[in-house]
């Protein structure tokens, strides 16, 4: 009888725990958008909207903070190149220095379910309330998609650039977490902005000292180191050109990319039938042909814990057989770099790419100077005959275009200097694209070098590191190896 009572109580207790646990969940928080209208590119909105949709499909309802919140004023800007067939106003924009601005349009964001603005003074109390509402058993996932500002000092002084040109640094974000989040709630994060690597300091108990991992664990992924700008943030709405960290990372988690195209390889490396966050990160490292040198918290931890002399050692030996060694091999094969002479080949290619970059940059500057010279020549001649063109916001200007627009257009079409100007301006835009391509190629080789070093660091960790370092690393890897759809 007594045994039955104990069994009944045990069963009840188990049920209560189960019920309590079923209430708890992974709670995603999306923060994003630009810091002002001119820095609020359409791609950020599309990225965040896509992530929101994926999380909704995964059965989670993310809380979203975006630019100016529910203010109906424009907070997104888009850029679509304007064709020269579009009439005299575009031609005049070329001549009078508004060539770029001519393709810009502005509108209010189209995200649904936005909880509020990201402006620091409004966002911070809301974040505190949100964090305070979480309870033991919940897991917090923070995804930031926007801009970042660098630090001139410590890594944890890099910051998010929020609406109203306000800032929130990694150290301040950690203070908010420490003061309002239940210490039993673990945090995972994905920061994709420029200089985002500074946010890896969140994994430590003290973001400034970087000693001791926070309890419970905080882990995550960033698009870049604390010292480099990240790819993305283009105002273009050409979906095929998305190359930022979010694009690849969430595509791997989703099983197909944003355009519905299949992935380039199966990201499920351990073959357990689902892609976890770490596998998505490794997929991104392998396939993102972008300027990003992305990193996970476990990689950063490993790099911070290697013995002091390992930073100064080159590794001519055989590549260790671990996850980074294998990734190095796959990336090397993709980049057509032979493994046996990888270091030499990479160095030679980098030298060549840097030299080409410097040459192109110099050509671009010459082209820009030539375009400016031509602009002065053409605009000077136009203003001499049509002085009203100097005051574009006046009635006289509108009258001039209405009456003599065709005449001005014909004159420009016949002007050899104007045609040279069009050529120079278009060439300058092509230079931008070519320079970006070279930067991406350089980043692939830098990534290969970094992955190779990580392979040796991991070899050291597995073989000779102290137990506490090994344990810290394994715990972070465990924290990162969670699928998106997990709920407790």
């Amino acid at each position, binding site marked *: 009888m007594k045994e039955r009572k104990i069994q009944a109580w045990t069963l009840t207790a188990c049920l209560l725990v189960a019920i309590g646990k079923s209430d708890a969940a992974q709670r995603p928080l999306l923060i994003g958008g630009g810091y002002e209208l001119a820095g609020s590119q359409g791609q950020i909105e599309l990225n965040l909207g896509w992530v929101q949709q994926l999380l909704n499909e995964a059965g989670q309802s993310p809380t979203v903070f975006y630019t100016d919140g529910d203010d109906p004023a424009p907070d997104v800007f888009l850029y679509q190149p304007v064709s020269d067939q579009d009439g005299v106003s575009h031609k005049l924009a070329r001549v009078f220095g508004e060539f770029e601005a001519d393709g810009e349009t502005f509108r209010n964001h189209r995200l649904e379910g936005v909880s509020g603005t990201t402006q620091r003074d409004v966002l911070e109390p809301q974040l505190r309330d949100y964090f305070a509402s979480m309870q033991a058993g919940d897991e917090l996932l923070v995804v930031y998609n926007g801009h970042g500002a660098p630090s001139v000092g410590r890594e944890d002084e890099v910051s998010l650039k929020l609406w109203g040109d306000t800032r929130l640094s990694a150290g301040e974000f950690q203070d908010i977490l420490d003061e309002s989040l239940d210490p039993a709630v673990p945090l995972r994060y994905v920061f994709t902005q420029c200089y985002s690597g500074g946010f890896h300091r969140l994994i430590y108990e003290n973001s400034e000292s970087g000693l001791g991992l926070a309890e419970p664990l905080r882990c995550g992924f960033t698009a870049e*180191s604390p*010292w*480099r700008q990240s790819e993305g943030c283009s105002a273009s709405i050409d979906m095929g050109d998305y190359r930022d960290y979010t694009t690849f990372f969430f595509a791997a988690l989703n099983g197909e990319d944003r355009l519905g195209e299949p992935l380039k390889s199966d990201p499920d490396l351990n073959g357990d039938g689902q892609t976890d966050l770490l596998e998505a990160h490794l997929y991104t490292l392998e396939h993102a042909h972008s300027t990003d*040198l992305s990193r996970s918290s476990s990689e950063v931890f490993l790099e911070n814990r290697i013995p*002091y*002399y*390992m*930073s*100064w*050692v*080159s*590794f*001519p*030996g*055989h590549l*260790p057989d671990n996850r980074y060694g294998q990734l190095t091999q796959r990336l090397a094969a993709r980049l057509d770099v032979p493994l046996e*002479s990888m*270091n*030499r080949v990479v*160095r030679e290619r980098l030298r060549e790419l840097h030299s080409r970059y410097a040459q192109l940059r110099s050509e671009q500057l010459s082209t820009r100077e030539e375009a400016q010279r031509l602009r002065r020549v053409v605009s000077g001649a136009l203003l001499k005959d049509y002085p009203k063109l100097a005051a574009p916001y006046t009635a006289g200007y509108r009258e001039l275009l209405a009456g003599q627009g065709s005449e001005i257009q014909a004159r420009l079409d016949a002007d050899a200097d104007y045609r040279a100007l069009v050529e120079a301006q278009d060439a300058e835009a092509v230079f931008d694209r070519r320079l970006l391509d070279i930067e991406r190629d350089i980043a692939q080789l*830098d990534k290969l*070098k970094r992955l*190779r*070093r990580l392979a*040796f660091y991991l*070899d*050291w960790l*597995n*073989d*000779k590191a102290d137990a506490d370092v090994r344990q810290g690393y394994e715990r972070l890897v465990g924290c990162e190896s969670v699928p998106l759809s997990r709920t407790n």
Partner: protein
Amino acid sequence: MKPLMRCRLIRAGLIFLLFMLVLWPSFVLVSTAMGYWLGDGIVVSRYTGEPRRLMLAALTGGYAASLPQAAGIALVATGLLWLFSHRFVTLMLSGLAAAVFLLLVYLFTLPFSLANSLILILVAVEFLLLLMVGGYWMRRCRG
């Protein structure tokens, strides 16, 4: 204390200090040169895209962190010089013994993939230092 012994002790102390203080810069120098020579060139480029001050901090931090190990290595090297430096041949043998000593230490403390490259560097550093101090040591103290 006899003047000869005092001279030897001072000489040993000076050499111990020299070994300890120049071991880390020599290590970085040789490692960088070997990295470049082996086609790696990665030692300095690891800091590509990072502020120069981080590289300097790693350099000075490495100096401070290396001192205890450098002291151990300097002690062994000084002891070997003391014991074997009566003739040039034995001096060279002491260099060899020091290399073997380092080899054993690093094989026990490092994974093979790392010891593999590190030992090459350390033996080169050791050889460089022996060349520097060997000549000085060979000059006898006069009692």
